[in-house]
């Protein structure tokens, strides 16, 4: 007879850059109300369902791997979320943006309307709860707004979505269509002619995620 392990796994959390920003605002937006789990760093090709020692060893190469510490950059962590789907799911939802990157000149605007493949038995589906759009550096846009979802959470996020506070922080909005306008501020470029950011789109129902690079090119006429 042995002892059963009754210990609860305990881990220490750190604030993200966004968390610090919201905590500093002091307007109640920091309040933690939900969680998500992710499998960042896991390579499922290491899972071996043909392991000669049996099913207890299928995940041997994954379960013993050391993990990195948490990153405070909210755009670089929680990339691949675990999702709750019906048992028997054979294909995972995939988000389609219709483009693999976004290139804009200063003050130019563009819109994106994502679709989700392999979700709710449809080939191309607009998720009912919409999508979260996260840009890694909000300073690069004079306008970053989403429309099409009218929930309280979407309204709270989309309010003031066009304001930049001068710091390199991410910005998240909720909707079915994203409209973004590249900044006209030349000083952000410094001695460079191009600015870079990443856009992350996550389906709020499916959990599907896609990330694409965004490039802003400097024009000499902008002020």
């Amino acid at each position, binding site marked *: 007879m042995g002892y059963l392990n009754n210990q609860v796994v305990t881990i220490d959390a750190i604030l993200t850059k966004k968390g610090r920003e*919201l905590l500093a605002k002091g307007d109640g937006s920091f309040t933690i109300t939900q969680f998500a789990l992710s499998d960042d760093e896991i390579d499922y090709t290491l899972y071996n369902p043909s392991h000669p020692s049996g099913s207890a060893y299928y995940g041997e190469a994954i379960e013993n791997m050391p993990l990195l510490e948490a990153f405070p950059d909210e755009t670089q962590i929680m990339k691949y979320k675990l999702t709750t789907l019906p048992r028997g799911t054979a294909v995972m939802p995939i988000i389609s943006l219709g483009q693999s990157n976004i290139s804009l000149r200063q003050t130019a605007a563009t819109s994106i309307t994502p679709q989700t493949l392999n979700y709710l038995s449809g080939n191309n589906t607009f998720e009912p709860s919409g999508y979260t759009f996260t840009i890694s550096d909000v300073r690069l846009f004079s306008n970053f707004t989403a429309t099409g979802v009218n929930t309280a959470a979407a309204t709270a996020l989309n309010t003031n979505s066009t304001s930049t506070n001068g710091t390199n922080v991410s910005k998240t909005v909720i909707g079915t269509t994203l409209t973004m306008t590249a900044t006209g501020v030349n000083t952000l470029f410094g001695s460079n002619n191009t600015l870079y950011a990443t856009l992350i789109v996550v389906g709020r129902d499916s959990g599907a995620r896609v990330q694409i690079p965004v490039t802003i090119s400097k024009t000499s006429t902008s002020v």
Partner: protein
Amino acid sequence: MSFKSIDPQDLVISTDSITATIWSNNNPTLINYFTSSVQVATNTGQYYYSVYQTASTDSTAAVQFNVAYCDLLGSGSEFYNNAVTGSSPTRTNYGQYRTLILGDENAGFIFGNYSASYFYALNIERARYKEKLFPGTMTMYLSGSSGKISLTDDSKVAASITFKDAGRVFNLVSGSAGTVFTGTNTNGWAGGANSTSGSYGWFLPDVGLILLNAQALSSSIALGGIGLLTSRSFDTADNNPARIVDSLKIAGANNFGWTLNSEETLSSDFIFVRARNGEFNYSENPSFISGSTGAVLYNSFINNPTTYITTVGLYNQTNELVAVAKLSRPLPKDFTKELLVRVKLDF
């Protein structure tokens, strides 16, 4: 769905007290004391001396505490203006600490049974003590011409706590680590119960301040002092703070240092993350699928998927990631497993 609401009962706020040594590099006892000739020569040197744990020119040098001499009559330093007798940095110091601690311009510093018109103020650098000093942990050795004494606060034996404008006030008494010396002086004060010089001073943990009664320290060793000579010349820079630093140095040179801990209140959120058997069994990880069709990597994953949890993300109502925690190793999750993780978030 990727997000799961946290049940209000799964979020607990806890407050813990954290104690640590106050000196740099987690050194429990300070035995080396250095001043900066540059700082002493500047205007601030007329008010206080900064004390470092190593030579002030060393790259690791950090101010540990400051020593100020305070005098009601303005003695021990040059007057600001010869036309105004008594108005000097030491008088300014006295008024500053009187306002801070007593909050009444008519009040005086009474150490035990002695009303003091001059004393030394040792204020600990804020970065060292963090929130407050931890009463009952101090042992400070001072050496002088009459010998050596060790001082501590009487928080462990005080019948009640005295509060002033600067918070809690304890008497500095003879002893160590909060244990009051009861050998010859039953109350631990210099000169015993009939002392004419009172206690050795005050210990004010909430503002990181220690006041040393110069009169008590000037007594002979037989009366509980160390023969510390405090000079009270008019309109003369007597550099009295250096006398306290020297007293600490002499004791430290014989490995009798200054031990003191800090106390910090740390508020933590404990969030219990529960993943039920039917939840979080599929992944959006690119390696979980094969090709661009979205098909799961292995056929066995269709009915018996296994995911590996490495990260817990905490979100606000608008899906913004505000805190994140990593596990030390991947935890497998499938339709036969449930998970309970306690996430601790310190503020």
